[in-house]
């Protein structure tokens, strides 16, 4: 069974939302102050543009994964190098997300539980879902969890309305100017750029010629949610507190007190949200094991699940407590991964693919 377009939509929605409401808002507020929401809207446009390129590339080679079509376009060795770089990058981001996730759970839910236990539980679930059902099972989970997360987010937005001070959103633009707004947009744009994983998933999609709309919609909805969340956070906590909070959305949910009756909703939101992070990590594990298997020419890719999982697990534990939580995002992802892997290489791949396509058509 292959992934339907509807499942694809939910898969990308869950994995984009889980990141953008979690990590990107406070760095954006720090750069763009009360205009962070404009930044996030710009980020959405950038996200749509880079996703569009990635989808066009993969649609031209819909039966192949990135590892395969890079070899077809650039020849065996350069192609393998590009594939290997992408896989390495995906290994690193998967480990980083796993680590931040474990630190987050430790900080908010289990103060005394060692990080390696939290990470091990997550990895066990990731391995299981990949082993038992591979990417189709992940798609079905996201179909289940995505709507729940959306409902949860909108309920919390609604309940938070009474806490808002809209005056905190003004003045618009005058304090920051165009440059900080654009600079701030790179944070979420780069996170939205994770949609480049579509290049590894096309062979598993039932109707890959029709996947443009659902995936682009799955970039738009998380962007809109990020914009609303930023407006809410700025109007609840102001830019000073809002930019310093590490997980501002969850702090905002904690702040909700509706009629003295609905309080401490953060546990509910976190519960659903953990499933969404699980979806994301499981897809990364799938891409990493499948891609490595193709790269090394291993027939049974499921063997690689265990090896990749162990690698991801070990890397995720190494830098704990030494490197700051968002250092990977600030010093690696936004500076190197975003321009090279999300914007640069897909454009090159598309151009080469178009050129080659013309050549073959002529011949």
């Amino acid at each position, binding site marked *: 069974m292959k992934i339907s377009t509807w499942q694809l939509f939910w898969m990308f929605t869950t994995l984009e939302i889980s990141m953008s409401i979690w990590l990107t808002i406070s760095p954006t507020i720090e750069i763009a102050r009360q205009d962070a929401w404009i930044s996030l809207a710009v980020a959405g446009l950038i996200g749509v543009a880079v996703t569009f390129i990635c989808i066009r590339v993969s649609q031209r080679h819909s039966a192949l994964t990135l590892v395969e079509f890079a070899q077809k376009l650039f020849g065996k060795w350069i192609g393998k190098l590009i594939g290997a770089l992408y896989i390495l990058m995906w290994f690193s981001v998967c480990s980083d997300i796993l680590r931040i996730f474990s630190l987050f759970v430790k*900080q*908010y*839910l*289990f*103060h*005394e*539980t*060692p990080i390696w*236990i*939290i990470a*091990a*539980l997550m990895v*066990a679930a990731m391995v*299981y879902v990949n*082993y038992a059902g591979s990417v189709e099972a992940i798609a079905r989970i996201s179909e289940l969890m995505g709507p729940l997360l959306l409902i949860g987010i909108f309920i919390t937005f609604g309940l938070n309305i009474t*806490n808002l*001070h809209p*005056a*905190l959103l*003004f*003045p618009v633009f*005058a*304090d920051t100017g165009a440059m900080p707004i654009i600079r701030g947009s790179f944070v979420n744009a780069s996170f939205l750029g994770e949609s480049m994983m579509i290049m590894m998933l096309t062979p598993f999609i039932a109707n890959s010629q029709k996947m443009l709309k659902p995936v682009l919609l799955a970039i738009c909805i998380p962007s809109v949610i990020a914009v609303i969340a930023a407006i809410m956070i700025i109007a*609840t*906590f*102001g830019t*000073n*507190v809002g930019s*310093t*909070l590490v997980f501002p959305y969850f*702090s905002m949910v*904690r*702040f909700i*007190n509706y009629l003295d009756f609905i*309080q*401490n909703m953060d546990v509910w939101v976190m519960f659903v949200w953990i499933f969404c992070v699980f979806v994301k990590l499981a897809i990364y594990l799938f891409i990493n094991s499948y891609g490595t298997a193709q790269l090394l020419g291993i027939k049974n890719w499921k063997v690689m699940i265990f090896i990749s999982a162990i690698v991801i697990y070990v890397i995720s534990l190494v830098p704990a407590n030494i490197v700051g939580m968002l250092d990977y995002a600030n010093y690696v992802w936004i500076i190197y991964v975003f321009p090279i892997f999300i914007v640069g290489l897909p454009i090159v791949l598309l151009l080469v693919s178009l050129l080659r396509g013309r050549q073959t058509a002529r011949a």
Partner: protein
Amino acid sequence: MKKRTVILGLFVLLVLLVLPGCWDRHEINNYAFWIGTALDAGKDGKLVKSAQVAIPADFKSIREGGGKGQRANIVLTASGQTVGDLIQQIQDKLPRKVFLGHRRAIFIGEKLARKGIKDIMDQFTRNTDTRMRTDIFVVNNGEGKDVLKINSPFNQFSSIVAVDQDRYCRLGDTALRDVLLDIGRDGIRPAMPMIDIAPKNEQEKHEVIEVKSVAIFNRDLQMVGEVTGRESLELFWVKGVLQNLLIPEEMETGNITIYESNLKKNIRTTIEGDRIKAYVKLEGSGRVLENNTDIDISVSKERIPLERKLNELKSKQVEATVKKIQKQYGQDVFGIGEEIHREHPYKWKEIKHKWDELFPNVEVTVKVKIKIQNTGAIGKRVPGIGDRK
């Protein structure tokens, strides 16, 4: 295939064995619920922290009526350099694990507030166990720990009483957030509700707490002054956080009291050279509660001039309050600077650094517009109680 299933099954079992509950397993009766915190300045620069901690066993006896006069909480005190150090010291005195998630209020002694609260604010936002929905008070002429020791007839926890009392007369449990919003901004200075300990008198067996003043802070988070009663309500009205108020007005022939709700504020500012002007417009709807004047408010011809007269009186009052704060304390607790920031963002950049010097000379004009929508249960006064012949 079968072998793999077995391995997987064993793995799952192993995971079950080390489920996180083992580390973070805390039964509810192992927790000591921390309801209120008090911070005071102690001797030789030390910080004194007191905690109001619930004694769950006594809930039951109090409900059954057997434990009259018994307290449902204890107040623990420790002194040290930092707030974190004090949490450990409080823990040392408790047989249960300290649980901060239910803390409702923070009381700061006036001495400490005047010294400055910059060094104690960090942990209120950083500690993930605490909630930001907390009320914060300065204790007028007193120590925070004295408030914790009060045994209120309404609730076993004076902290919760203070929060509720604040909710009905001023801000409520968003006070800490509201203070944090104002800290670090150029055009506004924080203001915090104050709590008074009213002395015992013959009628009241217990000491009572009163929330009737507001403490004014400067840029460095040092308390510089306070306003009480009517002035404190007007301060919050101009700031835009007050929900309702009730102030009697003296007319020529008697008093009239109007309950004012749906309060709104609107500030316009102009900058002409060195002169900064602010036009404050305060709106709301009123319901007459008491009328001891000769005016028949059921008649529009009499009510409208009364409305005008009242608004004039109130405008003058609020203006005087603003002037007093400008001249006496010089701190912009109203956020007039932030209004300029919003209205003239580019000019604001030039003047924001010297706002503390500019604020006392801002020309503030106040215009109150209360509409009497409701004359209460009666229109004109009942014959025999001051009716007109």
